[in-house]
């Protein structure tokens, strides 16, 4: 009798915890749904063609005409430039970790530093970028923003590419060596080509992080109503457009903040989903 009750009790415990788990799971999935719903419900009514195709006109921040084209273009410039710059650093480091590194210990240290850099808050990257700009005599500009964002994106991209390159089939690499290729040739013509889908995903992941980040460009890129014509001009960005517009006391302008948030979310989700699609397409160059 006792035994039976004990056996029943453990199944009850199992049931309770399982229910809690399913509930937690739904809670997490539900919050994603609620966030997306909020942005769509609030943003969609305020979104119109003028918002996407015009820069702010006089009195825009009081509710007059204009749009956020400056911020959309600015964000693409910033994140595009930063991703390119980060790639120039990340790809060689990841290839080094894959093909060149002589000791595991050294590889470990590089990976550990990358992980630690990844965890540093973006506001600290912004503050660091700001000290760099003071040292170089730069003002808040597209270039400053690109540097700060590239620093932020670099560890994300390197670790992501590194993880991808670890999946590289060793026999393929060895076949290349056996044919007399050097490590560099193998890296450029075999490893990169074979792993292209994953590398593209990693690059787009970093781009997505870059375009959504506000704290690092706050100090370094400034904000302007114009589309920048040179690297040394200040530049607007979407996250800051959301932030500044939401901070005004005018409901009309706040509605535009919601619309800007929708545009930003759309870009980020499109990049995220697009990278999956692209990865699948680029897979045709890989040897199965």
């Amino acid at each position, binding site marked *: 009798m006792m035994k039976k009750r004990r056996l029943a009790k453990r*199944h009850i*415990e*199992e049931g309770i*915890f*399982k229910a*809690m*788990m399913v509930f*937690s*799971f739904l*809670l*997490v*999935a539900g*919050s994603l749904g*609620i*966030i997306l719903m*909020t*942005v769509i419900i*609030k943003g969609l009514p305020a979104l119109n063609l003028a918002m996407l195709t015009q820069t702010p006109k006089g009195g825009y921040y009081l509710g007059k005409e204009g749009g956020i084209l400056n911020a959309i273009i600015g964000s693409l410039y910033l994140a595009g430039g930063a991703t390119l710059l980060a790639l120039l*650093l990340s790809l*060689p*480091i990841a*290839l*080094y970790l894959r093909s*060149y*590194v002589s000791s595991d210990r*050294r590889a470990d240290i*590089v990976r*550990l*530093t990358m*992980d*630690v*850099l990844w*965890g*540093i*808050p973006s*506001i*600290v990257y*912004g*503050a*660091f970028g*700001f*000290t760099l700009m*003071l040292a170089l005599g730069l003002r808040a500009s597209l270039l400053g923003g690109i540097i700060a964002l590239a*620093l932020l994106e*670099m*560890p994300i991209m390197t670790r992501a590419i590194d993880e991808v390159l670890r999946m590289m089939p060793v026999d393929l690499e060895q076949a290349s060596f056996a044919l007399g290729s*050097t*490590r*560099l040739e193998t890296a450029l013509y075999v490893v990169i080509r074979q792993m292209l889908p994953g590398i593209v995903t990693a690059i787009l992941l970093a781009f997505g*992080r870059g375009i*959504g980040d*506000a*704290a690092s460009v706050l100090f370094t890129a400034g904000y302007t109503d114009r589309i920048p014509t040179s690297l040394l001009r200040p530049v607007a960005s979407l*996250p800051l457009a959301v932030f500044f517009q*939401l901070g005004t006391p005018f409901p009309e302008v706040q509605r535009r903040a*919601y619309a800007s*948030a929708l545009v930003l*979310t759309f870009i*980020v989700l499109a990049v*995220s989903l697009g990278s999956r699609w692209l990865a699948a397409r680029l897979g045709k160059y890989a040897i199965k």
Partner: protein
Amino acid sequence: MPRRRLRDALAGKAFSWMAFLPLVIAVAMLFALLARSRPILESKSLWDLLAGQTWKPQQGEFGFYPFIIGTVWVTGVAMILAVPPCLLTAIYLAEYAQPAVRTVTKPLIDLLAAIPSVVYGVWGVVVIVPWVEDYIAPFMGKWLGSSIPLFAVNNPTGFSILAGGFVLAVMVAPFIIAVTYEVMHTVPEGMREASLAVGATRWQTIRYAVLPRARPGIIAGVVLGSSRALGETMAVLMVVGNVVKVPTSIFDPAYPLPALIANNYGEMLSIPLYDAALLGAALILLLIVLVFNIIATLVLRTVIRRSQ
């Protein structure tokens, strides 16, 4: 040496130099912030800075205490809200869920991680703040507020530590879930089978065989998550109220360190020592995060390596 070999050797050299770059960046970051905040470190004692309660840049008073405590409160509330559901979700995904559920969930969690922090902030302002203001605060204040100071409602708005904690909890969720899930996977299948074979239920297996073994990794994941929460800027800044005061209740506003930096960068060059103080705040943040991250990453690495 044939040109091909030369090129390979040169690339090898160049790449190995570039691999030092992350270390260089980390050290440069530390030194640049240290150098820029030196004026204030020299003119005030460390104790005055860290324990000082008054923040009046115009009068040259820079006490970081309210900001440090604000950061601790918001991060603490966020972790209390985030950790239980995240662990349960990760356990569910790792141990119970059908493969189909897992394949659907992975991209969902990636999406949650991909949402920019200002968008979380907008969500916080539109949904969480009014919710705290209209429902949670009146309810908790009525039942618990008079007896427990932690729940006292002295703040007429919903812009509060609790609102910041809610938003942060959702922001760090994908991170904690991903790490925990991965750590659970490092537990050898044989341990589960052994436990199930002697008649344990699934939950007993998880509780007595899987979790004890996964514990160090899970703790490391939670520490990493809280260091993310600690440095999160925009979303928190938008919902937390930003009042320079040492909070005593979760319904009080707070002013975390990242918000301090982000809100005042504009005027920092026009007041003496102000820039040093704000970059000093960034330095404090960097030091805390470095310590947290290095320890947690080392623990995680050992856990994952042991399983391979």
